[in-house]
């Protein structure tokens, strides 16, 4: 009995390796995917906040196997002359060489560059999720620069979705310390500066960074005229084209990227992607809010 089971599973594995497209097509024809999900369902998300104590805020996000860790470190800068009231948000993505067999250490990959572009668009340019004025300390003298670095640890598809959620979660839990600029031009905790001036003043709690909007992404693919939602790495290799849609908490479309591929998509299909993204948004927003409330509650 056991021998037959093993032979069956070996045959299935061999078929999958030799004819991946046919293997997949058989599942899709039945309206289901190899991991058991229906075509319209994305993977469950899990969010872990504050995992790295050396970072000013951090978030570990997993969609199935796809894993990204975002960490923010705050540093001080002198604001630029033409924007004296603004700080800076510097985003970087690194595909850790362990995340996929194609990655090698040293060379920054193309995939990482694309992800950085999408994150910059989502958080700064289009959605203006972060208002850089919030990062100012003393106009013209000092401001915060938040280095948001995201490491992709396990690359199993939907990287744009995972990295954006990790970035948003890290930003949502970022607390800006209360600081003041001394006469000598140094930035010190306000309690110190306040003690020097008026010793009776109480120490002030760090302030949370307010996100003006919360953008989240969903990657969908087109396979034999069927829309597949929330792709794994294997699926990304099989679909004819994929589209990443970013929507925010007010239901606005922040961005949509269809990067080439072997098939075209008509407007109706793109609308379907937007609807799917909105549905996914409700799901993710709930999980994110729960995680943040738990994290804030634990101090």
């Amino acid at each position, binding site marked *: 009995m056991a021998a037959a089971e093993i032979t069956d599973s070996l045959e299935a594995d061999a078929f999958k390796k030799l004819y991946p497209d046919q293997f997949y097509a058989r599942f899709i024809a039945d309206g289901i995917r190899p991991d058991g999900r229906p075509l319209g369902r994305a993977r469950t998300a899990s969010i872990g906040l504050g995992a790295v104590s*050396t970072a000013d805020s951090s978030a570990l996000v997993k969609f199935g196997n796809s894993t990204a860790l975002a960490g923010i470190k705050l*540093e001080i800068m002198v604001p630029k002359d033409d924007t004296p009231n603004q700080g800076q948000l510097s985003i970087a993505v690194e595909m850790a060489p362990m995340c996929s067999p194609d990655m090698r250490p040293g060379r920054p990959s193309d995939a990482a560059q694309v992800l950085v572009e999408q994150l910059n668009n989502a958080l700064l340019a289009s959605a203006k999720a972060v208002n850089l004025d919030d990062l100012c300390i003393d106009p013209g003298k000092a401001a915060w620069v938040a280095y948001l670095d995201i490491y992709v640890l396990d690359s199993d598809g939907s990287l744009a979705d995972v990295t954006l959620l990790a970035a948003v979660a890290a930003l949502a839990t970022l607390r800006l310390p209360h600081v003041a600029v001394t006469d000598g031009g140094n930035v010190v905790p306000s309690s110190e500066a306040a003690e020097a001036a008026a010793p009776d003043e109480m120490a002030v709690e760090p302030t949370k960074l307010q996100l003006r909007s919360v953008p989240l992404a969903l990657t969908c693919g087109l396979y034999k005229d069927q829309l597949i939602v929330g792709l794994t790495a294997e699926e990304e290799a099989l679909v004819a084209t994929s589209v990443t849609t970013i929507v925010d908490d007010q239901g606005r479309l922040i961005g949509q990227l269809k990067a080439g591929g072997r098939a075209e998509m008509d407007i109706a299909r793109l609308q379907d992607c937007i609807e799917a993204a909105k549905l996914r948004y409700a799901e993710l927003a709930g999980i994110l809010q729960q995680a943040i409330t738990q994290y804030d509650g634990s101090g």
Partner: protein
Amino acid sequence: MARRDTSVPYQPQSRPEAVVSDTGERLDGRGLEEFRSAFLSPHALSQAAGSAYAECGKTKVMVGVYGPRQSARATAFSEQGRVQCDVKLASFATRQRRRFGQSTDERELSGLLATALEAAVLRHTFPKSCIDIYCLVLESGGSELTVAITAAAMAIADAGIAMADVVTACSVSRVAGQLLLDPTADEAFREDGSVLLAMMPAANLVTQLVVTGEWSSAQMKQALCLCMGGCLQLDAVTRKALASSEEQALAAMRIE
């Protein structure tokens, strides 16, 4: 966008001066010869052939192993397989932010890690090929190299690559004449000497030894003894973690 080099770190707290109290208690409540509690978990990643996640106090390390496969670097023929290591610290892993791009200490850690693992891997089983060990330190709370060595050995085992024995590593810091086992970053900062030992516990062979600072023979013996005890303790934890991970994998296969 302003250049990254134009910002300065903000660090209100300096490192504690005294790391051991008069009663021999350390800042986190441990005794001088006590290990931090270790969490070791093989098969943490899906894409890599083998992987492991290790957490020792505030030091968190993720390791992924690929191979045996063709070496991207070396082209010369070699009868023995190559063990290629790459260690990186995340930019937010340390108190002060690190720049992207490999620094000299990361290159050094990679070399030391490779030497620690080479003796244990049965390299004649994959001639002309190599195994790639990618290590990312997510949080650096002290003794990164020791945690990386132990995690990497687990990841290699998880990948099914033939090994003579697992490798466990342990380090000792000397602060004000006292020997502290498994130091944290604050303790290592105040050290005037350190000993790192990596060994194959069952075979009783040392695969890596890194010593800094001035040591007399007697003190060196003491430190080595302490490290060996730590390695043996860690060995039990490592084997248990690997065994339970294997059991889980087998159980999952049976259900399918």
